């Protein structure tokens, strides 16, 4: 929805100039806009206040551009400054036409030829924090008429928090026309907040009761301030306290559900990270300390795809050895597609399968070169894979640099939605859903396909399966590749939520081992249960103890103690052999 607004804004700025030509009303607004941009201080604030009442789309677009340094000042030959916007579409030399704000026409020189500028040719109109918050307030007032309900709601709440009485009539007239239920509730809350500042004590009392009824979270501080006032009449204090109690109870429930959601999202991340490990560990007996680096491979693949869709990707490595007097270096440069808009935002959809494939290929390579010697020696596989993880980390450092790299979330994953004040972030909901899909797909693979049957056979008794004609080397390769591919997918998710750097893998290694061991090695159901359980327990403990670390320590110790009682984990696969 917000993206729709941005797209609308960009489109209206860029393509049609006809929308900028308007009737006499529009031109008066435009003149005022241009004046506001050129003026300063009190005058500017006053003009912005007036523009807030104009209810014009043009104002919203220009103000949005202004707060993002998108309004430029052209020094015309007669020494006056003309505020302009630059068109989106650029010609071959990177220059775009300029649109005058005061009349909506293209900027022309004395001969009537349209002038073209590149972004660095013009100075942008300066904004500072105070101006930007004034622009924001103007935008908020304008946003009261926004088609998007969420934008209306947040605008209403901001007006309420401002405690400025002059917004009362605006909000009341909005309430009469509002159809959306959540926005109506928000308007009621904002009105109550504003009425708290009214001189009449009866109005104040009604406002306090209203806030309690509405369970308005944002008004908690204000209500506490009311109670703390020395000149507060006793009935007002009483009803304020009642309101505070009901709001705090609501807050408790919000935190409760919020914690459960956070636990689910943390658990689903752990699940995706640990599922690949559960497969390689459980099905093959290989402890893969390089699993974290597979995650990093997936995350970096996401970064590369993002760059390929953008400006291109390149790297160069210089070795500290000299050959014929010059240092040895090699590099690679790939041109980018320079995509924009929806085309660019869709890079993530391509990045997901590519992360899977690249991590699977890396896993395949490792399996063929090193792991295949180590199947009967699980402890050696630990050491060898740790050595591999060191090598891979250093390779990441050499190719991508020791710094973290920037991976931007696509805009359709940004933001959040709220149900009864509990906010759910889109990227986390996406991770939860996709984790469920992945688990389902893995379950399908393992139980419904013939490959899955072979994998399970090899896991139960490798030698017997080989005797029955199963090509165990091929199964090993495919399983390890699959497990690594899952890790790559986890890396793609993690790139949206955290940072992408050479030591990304190290942060998740211990947690993923714990999840796998707790869930029971070789059991997918076990991994799901333990991941969700650990995630939820961690978040609940964080909520109750107030410190993020204590929760983690308690969870670890609890797992260690739990494993004394059930050494095989939650769901053990019982075989007939002694070990």
């Amino acid at each position, binding site marked *: 929805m917000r993206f729709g607004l941005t797209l609308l804004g960009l489109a209206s700025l860029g393509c049609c100039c006809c929308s900028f030509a308007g009737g006499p009303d529009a031109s008066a607004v435009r003149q005022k806009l241009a004046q506001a941009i050129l003026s300063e201080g009190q005058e500017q604030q006053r003009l912005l206040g007036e523009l807030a009442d104009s209810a014009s789309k043009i104002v919203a677009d220009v103000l949005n551009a202004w707060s993002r340094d998108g309004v430029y000042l052209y020094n015309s030959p007669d020494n006056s400054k003309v505020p302009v916007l630059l068109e989106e579409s650029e010609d071959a030399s990177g220059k775009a036409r300029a649109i005058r704000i005061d009349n909506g026409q293209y900027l022309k020189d004395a001969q009537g030829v349209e002038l073209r500028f590149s972004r660095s040719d013009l100075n942008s109109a300066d904004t500072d924090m105070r101006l930007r918050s004034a622009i924001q307030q103007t935008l908020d007032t304008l946003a009261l008429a926004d088609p998007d309900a969420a934008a209306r709601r947040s605008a209403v709440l901001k007006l309420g928090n401002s405690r400025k009485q002059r917004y009362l009539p605006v909000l009341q007239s909005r309430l009469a026309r509002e159809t959306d239920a959540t926005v109506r509730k928000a308007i009621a809350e904002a009105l109550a907040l504003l009425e708290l500042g009214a001189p009449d004590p009866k109005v104040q009392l009604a406002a306090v009761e209203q806030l309690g009824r509405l369970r308005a979270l944002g008004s908690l501080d204000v209500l506490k301030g009311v109670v703390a006032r020395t000149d507060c009449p006793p009935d007002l204090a009483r009803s304020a306290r009642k309101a505070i109690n009901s709001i705090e109870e609501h807050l408790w429930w919000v935190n409760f559900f919020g914690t459960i959601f956070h636990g689910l999202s943390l658990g689903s991340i752990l699940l995706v990270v640990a599922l690949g490990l559960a497969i390689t560990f459980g099905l093959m007996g290989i402890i893969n300390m390089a699993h974290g680096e597979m995650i990093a491979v997936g995350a970096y693949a996401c970064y590369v795809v993002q760059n390929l869709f953008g400006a291109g990707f390149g790297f160069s490595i210089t070795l500290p050895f000299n050959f014929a007097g010059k240092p040895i270096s090699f590099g690679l440069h790939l041109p980018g597609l320079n995509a924009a808009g929806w085309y660019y935002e869709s890079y993530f959809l391509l990045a997901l399968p590519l992360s899977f494939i690249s991590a699977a290929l890396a896993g395949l390579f490792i399996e063929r070169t090193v792991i295949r010697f180590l199947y009967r020696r699980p402890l050696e596989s630990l050491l060898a894979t740790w050595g591999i993880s060191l090598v891979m980390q*250093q390779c990441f450092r050499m190719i991508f640099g020791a710094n973290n790299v920037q991976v931007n979330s696509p805009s359709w994953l940004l933001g959040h939605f709220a149900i009864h004040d509990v906010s759910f972030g889109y990227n986390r909901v996406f991770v939860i859903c996709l984790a469920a899909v992945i688990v389902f797909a893995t379950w399908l693979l393992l139980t419904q396909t013939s490959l899955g049957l072979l994998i399970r056979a090899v896991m139960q008794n490798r030698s017997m399966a080989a005797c029955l004609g199963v090509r165990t080397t091929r199964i090993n390769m495919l399983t390890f590749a699959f497990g690594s591919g899952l890790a790559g997918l986890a890396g793609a998710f993690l790139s949206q939520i955290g940072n992408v750097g050479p030591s990304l893998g190290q942060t998740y290694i211990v947690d993923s081992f714990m999840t796998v061991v707790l869930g029971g090695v070789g059991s997918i159901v076990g991994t799901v249960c333990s991941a969700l359980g650990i995630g939820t327990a961690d978040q609940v403990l964080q909520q109750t103890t107030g410190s993020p*670390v204590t929760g983690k320590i308690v969870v670890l110790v609890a797992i260690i103690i739990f494993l004394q009682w059930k050494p095989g984990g939650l769901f053990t696969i019982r075989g007939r052999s002694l*070990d």
Partner: protein
Amino acid sequence: MGRTGTKSAKWGLGIAAVVIVVVIPSLNAFTPPGGLFHVSDFSINLYGKYLCYAILAVGVDMLWGYTGLLSLGQALFFTLGGYMMGMHLMRMIGDLGQYHQPIPDFLVFLGWHNLPAFWRPFDSFPFALLMAFLLPGLVALTFGYLAFRSRIRGVYFSILTQALTYAACLLFFRNSLLMGGNNGFTDFKFLLHHDLRVPATQRGLYVVTALVLLLVYAGCRWLSQTKFGLVQQAIRDSENRVLFSGYAAGYYKLFVFVLCALIAAAGGALYVPQVGIINPSEMSPEKSLEAVVWVAVGGRGTLVGPILGAIGVNALKSWTTRAFPDLWLLILGTLFVLVTVFMPKGIVGLPEQLHALRRPFGAKLTPAAPGPPEPEQESAKTR
């Protein structure tokens, strides 16, 4: 092990011991600085550090090479021993710290005015020494008892020790634990009325470390040749058969686990005054893995192997971080991979491997890699 029983090997070990304990410190004390045979103060300090690591490595090997338990948490006990000694050293700074207060610097800038109660007994050296063994020992006893009682073995045991050391690491990083937090303990000045900054004290510490290493080596060698040692190695080879033969394998494992924790703690307590700083990152899982790597590179199942591995790998690390600061992780990582895959018996077993390769044509060739099947439970199952 058979090889080290031979007379020439015994002579070799004896000469090495004399070199380490007597010759090197004398070269530091009695030859002129800058001369050809002079061992600089920096080097003595460095060698002392290597020897502490060697002590840790011997402990890891006793657990892994002789009992078959791969513990990824030995660095925890090493660091705990170091912390106990460090607490005493912090008290010995007196008021010579940055703030010239009678309590340690980090407590001052955390806002404390008086010493917390649990710090007070550490003024006495015997108490600190006792705690350096008692605390790691108790932790090992508790954890080991719980783990071995439920017959946790193999890979699970390793991962659990890793979790234990990770949890402890997180705990010690917290400033609210009043153990220095991320800064740890540093800026030590005095130990037993000797100034730590004087070369003579460092030399003395080096000699003590070398003697402790010899003691640990001799003790472990003796233990491995008693009946206890035989049971220990039998547990490594096949724990089930040991159980069926009527031995309470759990108690043997517990004893060895606690013993190795004490060995690691001794190494840690000697490490801290020589390095001058202790910090929770010493008990991170990576450090324990490094210790395991020293043993693997040196040769596990022998007692000389871990010493060689610890000294060799650390020397290599010191050199590569200087010579190739950008590539040293690559070098170290590749080394570990190659050693694990192609040299399962480590450096000590290398002559044997090469000898096996040199067999004349026509005779049955035993492949040098990946080596004889390891005496783990898995291969016992397939026999």
